[in-house]
C-alpha cells in the first residue's frame, strides 16, 4: 500500500499545528495582494445564505424535499430553533433544551429531540430499546439505535438515581461498541469514526448522549454490546491576576536584553548549526532589533525554537524564571483560582526586549483519558489603562508570547488565566447487550458503472443506501497500484418511484480493500441539506421507494 504524507497531514489533529505561526512581516507579504474585505463579504454572504436556507427548511415544518432548490419562507424561527446539530457531531449546548418539560423526550421522540424535528429520522427503521441499568448512582438507559452502513447512531440517556440535576456541562469519557460473536466471545470493536454529542433536558436531570459510529462492520442482524464509562463535568472559568507584571518582574527579574537571551541561547543550544549561530551573531552585531526577525528564519516561527526551549528549561534555575508561589522576598503571586487548584504550577514569565513570554501551567492531572485532563492556559493580558484584553501574538511550546510589550507597560498589565477543569460525576460502567433487528435500514445494490475520471477509469461496484445517506464502493480496474480516492466526485441523486428526486451531497471518501489490498475506495454522500446546522436523514418514503441512481445526469436502475 502506498500513501502520501501530505494526505496524511490532513488528518492530523489541529492541536498539533498550534505552534505554527507566521511573522507579521511574512503575513503582510503573503497577503499584500489580497482583498480581506472581499473575504469577509464572501464569507458573510455565504453565512447569510445558509442561515436563510436554514430558516426556510425548518419553517417548512419538516416537509421540505431534499434536493429542492429553494423553499418558501413561511415562518421565521428563532435562532434557538436553528441550532440543530449534524448527526456526526456534538449536539446543542445543554442550556438550549434545559427548559423542556419532563415529558419532552417522550413527546418529541429522541431523534427529533437530538437532531431536530426536520431531520426526518425514519421512525419505522429505528430500533427502540428503552432499557436501563444502574451503576455508581447513575441510571443509563439505552434508548434507540438507527443502524447504518457499518455502525449507526446510538442514543442513550443518563439520570441520577437520586433525581438530582447534572452539572451544566456533563459528558461521557468513553463509549465502546462490540459485535458479539455467536459463540459468546466478545467480538472486536471496529468503528473508526465516532462522533458524539450531549443534550441536557428536563431541567438538567436527564442527559441524552448521541454516538455515531461509521465505517465499521455491519451490525444489523447481530448481537452487539454497548459500554459507556465515566461521566464527568467541565467547569470553565477565566480570571485576571491581582498583581501586575511589574510586581512580578520586581521579584523575579526575568527581563532580558536580546544580547543576554542570545548569549544564553548560544551557550546552551548545541543543536544549532554553526552557520545559523553565526547568522544570529551577525544580525545581533549589525542591528539588535533585527536579530529576532532573522532568527525567525523569515518563516514559520516568531521565536527561535531553540531559544524557547532554553528559556523553558531554565525557568527554574539560572534565569530565575520559575514560580514557586513564594519567593525569598516573601511576596506571593497567587494566580486566580490557584487556591482552589494548587497543584497547577505556573511556568513563569520572561520579557525579552519587546516580547513577553508567558509559560503555561504544568497541568497534567494524571488522567490517561485526554478528555479528563484539565486545561489551564494564559493567552491574554488585561490592560488596566484601557480595560481592554490583549491577546497573544502566537504560541510556541508551552508559552504564549506577546509582541510590543515594553517595560513602561508592565505596571498596567495583568495576566488572565483560563481554566477548564474536569470533575468526575460518576465512575460507573454501564454495559448493555442487544440484538439489532433488520428493519430494512440498509439496502445494498450491485453496480457496474464505469466512471471516467482525471485519474483514470474507475468502476462503481456497489451502493449502500441507509437512513444516513449512501456509500459507493469503487475500484480502479486498470490500475496495478492503489490510487486511493478519486478526486472527481459526480453529482448524485436518488430517483424515486413517484418520479421525484433526492439530491445527495458529497461527504468525502476513503481507501478500501475490495479484491486486493487497498485497491478501491468508498465515497459517502449524505442527503443534501440547505441548513448548515441541520441533519437530514433519508426517510422511509425515500428508502423504500428508490428506483434508480442518477450520476451526473445519467440514470442507472437499481435492482
Amino acid at each position: 500500500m502506498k500513501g502520501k504524507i501530505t494526505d496524511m497531514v490532513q488528518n492530523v489533529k489541529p492541536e498539533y499545528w498550534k505552534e505554527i505561526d507566521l511573522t507579521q512581516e511574512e503575513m503582510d507579504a503573503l497577503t499584500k495582494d489580497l482583498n480581506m474585505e472581499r473575504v469577509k463579504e464572501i464569507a458573510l454572504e455565504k453565512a447569510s445564505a445558509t442561515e436563510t436556507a436554514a430558516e426556510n427548511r425548518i419553517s417548512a415544518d419538516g416537509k421540505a424535499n431534499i434536493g429542492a432548490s429553494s423553499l418558501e419562507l413561511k415562518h421565521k424561527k428563532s435562532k434557538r430553533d436553528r441550532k440543530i446539530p449534524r448527526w456526526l457531531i456534538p449536539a446543542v449546548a445543554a442550556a438550549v433544551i434545559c427548559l423542556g418539560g419532563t415529558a419532552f423526550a417522550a413527546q418529541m421522540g429522541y431523534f427529533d429531540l437530538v437532531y431536530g424535528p426536520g431531520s426526518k429520522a425514519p421512525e419505522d427503521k429505528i430500533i427502540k430499546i428503552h432499557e436501563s441499568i444502574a451503576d455508581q448512582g447513575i441510571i443509563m438507559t439505552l434508548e434507540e439505535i438507527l443502524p447504518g452502513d457499518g455502525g449507526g447512531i446510538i442514543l442513550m440517556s443518563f439520570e441520577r438515581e437520586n433525581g438530582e440535576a447534572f452539572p451544566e456541562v456533563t459528558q461521557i469519557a468513553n463509549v465502546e461498541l462490540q459485535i458479539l460473536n455467536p459463540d459468546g466471545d466478545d467480538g472486536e470493536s471496529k468503528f473508526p469514526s465516532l462522533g458524539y454529542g450531549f443534550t441536557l433536558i428536563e431541567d438538567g436531570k436527564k442527559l441524552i448522549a448521541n454516538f455515531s459510529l461509521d465505517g465499521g462492520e455491519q451490525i444489523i442482524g447481530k448481537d452487539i454490546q454497548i459500554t459507556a464509562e465515566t461521566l464527568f463535568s467541565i467547569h470553565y472559568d477565566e480570571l485576571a491576576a491581582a498583581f501586575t507584571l511589574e510586581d512580578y518582574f520586581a521579584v523575579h527579574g526575568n527581563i532580558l536584553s536580546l544580547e543576554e537571551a542570545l548569549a544564553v541561547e548560544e551557550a546552551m543550544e548545541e543543536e544549532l548549526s554553526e552557520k545559523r549561530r553565526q547568522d544570529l551573531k551577525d544580525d545581533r552585531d549589525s542591528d539588535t532589533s533585527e536579530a529576532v526577525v532573522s532568527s525567525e528564519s523569515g518563516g514559520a516561527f516568531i521565536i527561535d525554537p531553540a531559544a524557547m526551549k532554553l528559556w523553558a528549561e531554565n525557568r527554574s534555575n539560572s534565569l530565575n524564571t520559575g514560580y514557586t508561589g513564594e519567593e525569598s522576598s516573601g511576596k506571593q503571586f497567587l494566580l486566580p483560582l490557584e487556591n482552589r487548584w494548587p497543584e497547577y504550577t505556573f511556568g513563569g514569565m520572561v520579557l525579552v526586549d519587546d516580547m513577553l513570554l508567558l509559560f503555561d501551567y504544568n497541568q497534567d492531572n494524571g488522567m490517561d483519558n485526554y478528555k479528563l485532563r484539565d486545561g489551564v492556559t494564559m493567552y491574554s493580558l488585561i490592560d488596566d489603562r484601557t480595560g481592554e484584553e490583549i491577546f497573544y501574538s502566537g504560541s510556541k511550546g508551552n508559552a504564549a508570547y506577546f509582541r510590543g510589550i515594553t517595560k513602561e507597560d508592565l505596571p498596567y498589565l495583568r495576566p488572565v488565566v483560563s481554566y477548564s477543569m474536569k470533575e468526575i460525576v460518576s465512575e460507573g460502567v454501564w454495559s448493555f447487550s442487544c440484538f439489532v433487528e433488520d428493519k430494512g435500514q440498509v439496502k445494498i445494490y450491485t453496480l457496474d458503472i464505469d466512471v471516467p475520471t482525471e485519474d483514470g477509469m474507475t468502476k462503481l461496484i456497489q451502493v449502500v443506501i441507509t437512513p444516513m445517506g449512501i456509500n459507493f464502493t469503487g475500484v480502479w480496474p486498470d490500475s496495478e497500484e492503489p490510487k486511493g480516492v478519486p478526486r472527481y466526485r459526480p453529482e448524485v441523486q436518488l430517483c424515486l418511484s413517484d418520479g421525484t428526486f433526492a439530491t445527495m451531497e458529497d461527504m468525502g471518501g476513503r481507501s478500501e480493500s475490495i479484491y486486493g489490498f487497498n485497491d478501491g475506495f468508498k465515497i459517502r454522500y449524505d442527503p443534501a441539506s440547505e441548513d448548515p446546522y441541520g441533519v437530514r436523514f433519508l426517510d422511509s418514503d425515500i428508502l423504500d421507494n428508490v428506483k434508480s441512481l442518477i450520476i451526473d445526469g445519467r440514470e442507472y436502475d437499481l435492482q
Partner: protein
Amino acid sequence: MTEDKLILEGLKRGETDSLQTLIDKYGRYAAAVSAKVSSGKLSSQDIEEVTADVFIAVWKTASRIDPDGNTLKAYIGSTARNRTFNEMRKSKHKELQDIDDHDNLLTIPGAEESFIEQEGARQLELLIDDLKEPDREIFIRRYFFMEKVMDIAGRLNMNEKAVSARIARMKQRLQESCMKEGAIR
C-alpha cells in the same frame, strides 16, 4: 471565557457578528497560510475564496469544535492548509506533483485495510511529538506548507542535501513506525 470561546459560542448561536469578529482576528492569518501553501499557484481570487470557505467551515461546524488551548488559531490554520491543498488537488496543479515525489510516498506492505486513513495520521502525530529542531521546522515546512527542499534549505541556511537527508530520515522513521503498527494490528 476566552475571546475565541466567546466567538465560538456566538457562532453556535448563528450570530454573524461573531463571524465578522473571527475574520477580523484570523482572516489575514488564514489567507497567509493559504497563500503560503499555494505558493503562487492559486490566483488572489482563489485564495480569497478559499479563505472565506475556511470561515464558513468554522461557521458550519462550530458546534463540534473544541478549541485546543482556548484558541481557534490552530483549527483555522489547519483548515486553511487543507482547503488550499484540496483546491490545488481539485484543479490538479501539476506543481503539486513536486511534493508527490519520493519523499512524500510511503510504502507499507502488509498493513491492514484503511491503515493510512485511520492510523497513518496517528503515527504522524507521534512523529511530530518526537521531532527536535530543526527537523520539526523542516517537517512543517515540507509537509504542512509544502515548501520545496531548496527553499527550506535557503530559509534555514542549510545545505540542500542536508535537508533532503533529514527529510529522508523522518520519512524512514514514519514508514517504520507505520509498518510496525500495521504489522501488529
